């Protein structure tokens, strides 16, 4: 019962947040809507019994990346964001520009249809497992997997983070004018 409620709430939050990212004109609002969506996804993880992943999601994504985005918005003058350029057909773009939305919808439709094909072949051939109430904790096992089976990916990801760290610092450092 709890699971179902959690599920519905999380799903609503996720989807509402996603649509919010799409719809709002203000970039700050988009970031907040993304934050909400990410929290909803964490909830969805929780319903599936992926406890560690859910928590990691909140800590890293919500607490780190979105904050970073907000900083970037503040550093690039998001509030005063006015676009001068034109879009594909030479019309002045705005948030409610019909063409860009229709383009996006077109792309989304393509994707949906594609995925429908995928899903159709996959989904109904799977055994329909239900979500049950009791889950084992995944932390121990994830720890074991990270060190034993996926140790290479683990190490490489740490190298990757180092690289990203250094790179970002170099790219965005202030230049002497």
């Amino acid at each position, binding site marked *: 019962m709890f699971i179902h409620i959690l599920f519905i709430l999380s799903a609503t939050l996720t989807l509402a947040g996603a649509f919010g990212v799409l719809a709002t004109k203000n970039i700050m609002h988009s970031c907040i809507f993304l934050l909400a969506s990410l929290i909803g996804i964490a909830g969805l993880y929780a319903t599936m019994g992926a406890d560690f992943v859910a928590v990691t999601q909140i800590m890293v994504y919500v607490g780190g990346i979105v904050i970073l985005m907000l900083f970037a918005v503040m550093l690039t003058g998001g509030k005063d964001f006015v676009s001068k350029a034109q879009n*594909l057909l030479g019309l002045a773009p705005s948030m409610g520009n019909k063409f860009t939305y229709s383009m996006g919808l*077109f*792309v989304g439709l*393509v*994707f949906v*249809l*594609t995925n429908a*094909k995928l899903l159709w*072949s996959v989904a109904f051939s799977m055994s329909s497992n239900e979500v049950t109430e009791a889950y084992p904790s995944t932390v121990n096992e994830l720890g074991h997997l990270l060190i034993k089976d996926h140790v290479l990916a683990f190490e490489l990801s740490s190298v990757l983070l180092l690289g990203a760290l250094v790179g970002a610092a170099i790219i965005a450092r202030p230049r002497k004018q």
Partner: protein
Amino acid sequence: MEYTIGSIAPIFLAPVLAFVINAFIGNKLPRKGDWLATLSIFVSFIYSAKIFGDFVFGKFATDYFVHKTFTWFDLNYGDFVFKVDMGVYIDNMAAIMLLMVSGVATLIHLFSTWYMDHDERHGRFFTFLPLFTSAMLGLVLSDNLLSLFIFWEIMGFCSYSLIGIYYEKEKAGDASLKAFMTTRVGDVFLLLGMVAIWMVIGSVGYVDIYAAIAEGKFVGQTVLGISLASFAGFCIFMGGMGKSAQFPLHVWLPDAMMGPTPGSALIHAATMVAAGVYLALRMYPLMVIGDLTSFIAIIGAITAFGAATIALVQSDIKAVLAFSTISQLGYMMIGVGVGSYNAAFMHLITHAVFKACLFLSAGSVIHSIHEQEMPKMGGLRKKLPYTFFAMMCCTLAIAGIPFFSGFVSKDRILGDALYFGFMAGQSPLMAIVPILGFAGAGLTAFYMFRMMFLTFFDKPRDHHIYDHAHDEHLDARSNVPLLILTVFTLGFWYCGTLTGQSFGKVFGEKTEWFKILVEAPKVENFVNHSREEFSTVDTRAGVELEKAHYHHQTGYAGPNPDEHKIHTAHTIGAILSIIIAFSGVFIAFLMYIKKSVKPLSGKFPEFTKVLQAKYHFDELYVGIIIQKGLLGLNRFLAWFDMGVYDRFAVDGWAAVNRTLFRASKWFDNVIVDAIGVDGAGVAVNLFNLVLRIVQSGRIQFYFVMLVVVLASYIWTINI
């Protein structure tokens, strides 16, 4: 006598040597080399006389012959056999003919040295005359049809040169070409006949042909549905028709009188025209098994009579002699046709002698008065006594007056023709042969004496010519040849009796030598003949032949011989021909000396014109056959070649090429240049345009593309 190369070859080679020397350095020799030619012919005469003596006085056997061969070329290869032998074949007939030809030729050469003395073609004449004589002697000596044909053609060429010797005269050129072309028609048939014989036997030697006939190799062979023997015989006889001026190939001989008279004497009396009869006599067994003898007899009869009718109205002395030659050749062919082998050959010999004498006498007349037309002559008896005497004897011979040679031979022919026509069981059509023969004999007597009377008797009709005529003196070169020939126009040289009919045997058996020795070849004798090599050594086995003897031979080799009936026919024929000959002379006497009978030409003017136009044969051949037929065909073929073939096959290619050129030019310009070269640039521009849109630099556009492509991948994967 030994028969080796040394004893036979000089007959043929001596005149050839004279020809070669005269051809190259004749102009530098004194008198243009005429003495050299005469000497060479005399050498041939000596050798021929030796052979004649051996055959007639030595061996005296009917079936005796000498046959020597040598291989000309031999192309044998495995199964394929092709061997051509050349050689000599001398039997009694050939020996007599050799003597006659070389003797007459010697006298003619001697005469020509006087006749052609101030003629501008003197050297040329004496270049071709010995060549001609050597060709004839080679022809008589040859043992196969191929070498006969070679000499035949050489004679044709010499005749062409001699007739057209005055080449500045257009008529002479036309006449020589006409002679050559007409005999050529016959020669083509002769070659065809030779090929036909070769196909059956594989050789064209006389001996091989006789042996093949005896073995029956010709039986059952057909070509184009007719028996091969008939076909070959007909073709060979056509060759003889051309050379011996039989109807319908006789048109060349009158025009051949454009040549110098001694040349005519040799060519158209003694030698070339006799070659056709000689060929028919040699090929007589073939004619027999080909059933052609009746055909030959009819052709001969038509020729004999027709030419005699034309000669009645001719006014040129040489034309009369020309037509009389054609007529007498017709008699020889009658002889071959009716089976009178011996008499036909005898007539050939006797005709050669007296016709040569007649031509030479005519030449003497022409030389003295420089005129050929008889209406302008007259009363030349006193001016040219020796010529007159010679010509008179020869005219008596040709008219068939008894005791002369012409009577002997012609009467025997007519007697056999009478038997053949009426009594030998042939079809009634064959009666034409003796009828025309006797009629022609009468006409012969008439027109020859007409000629004599117009020329030598009566009062001179043109005093200018008469006064300026050279008087004749006995001269070694101008008269003696005539007189020598005249001696041999007497009958008793050829047969023992004075009349030729064995009514009175005067001198015994051997005087009938001619009749005994010359006989139609018995083909059975040649079946197992062995070859002797013609070399410097005589390799004959010493075979003694049975000496011939006079045994009531009739000399008749035709169908159904019945000795008693033949004798009857000969008796009737003799009486008939004497009557006819004398009446002919008498009528001529009445017409031209007594003038009591008007010449019939006045009564039948249109017919006279037809005769004078020689029955319009020239117009027929030239105007219709050549102009309309052959030239029409020629024009058609030329049109076809140029208009059709050239236009389409040759010029058409140019049009095709032009079209191909235009097509390839279009292809090059449009497809290669416009589409290929320029099009590549345009395509690049087009793609450029498209790519410019794609490479907009806008990231979101790239992303859309990315998604679309990804989706397309997924859609195309079969999951």
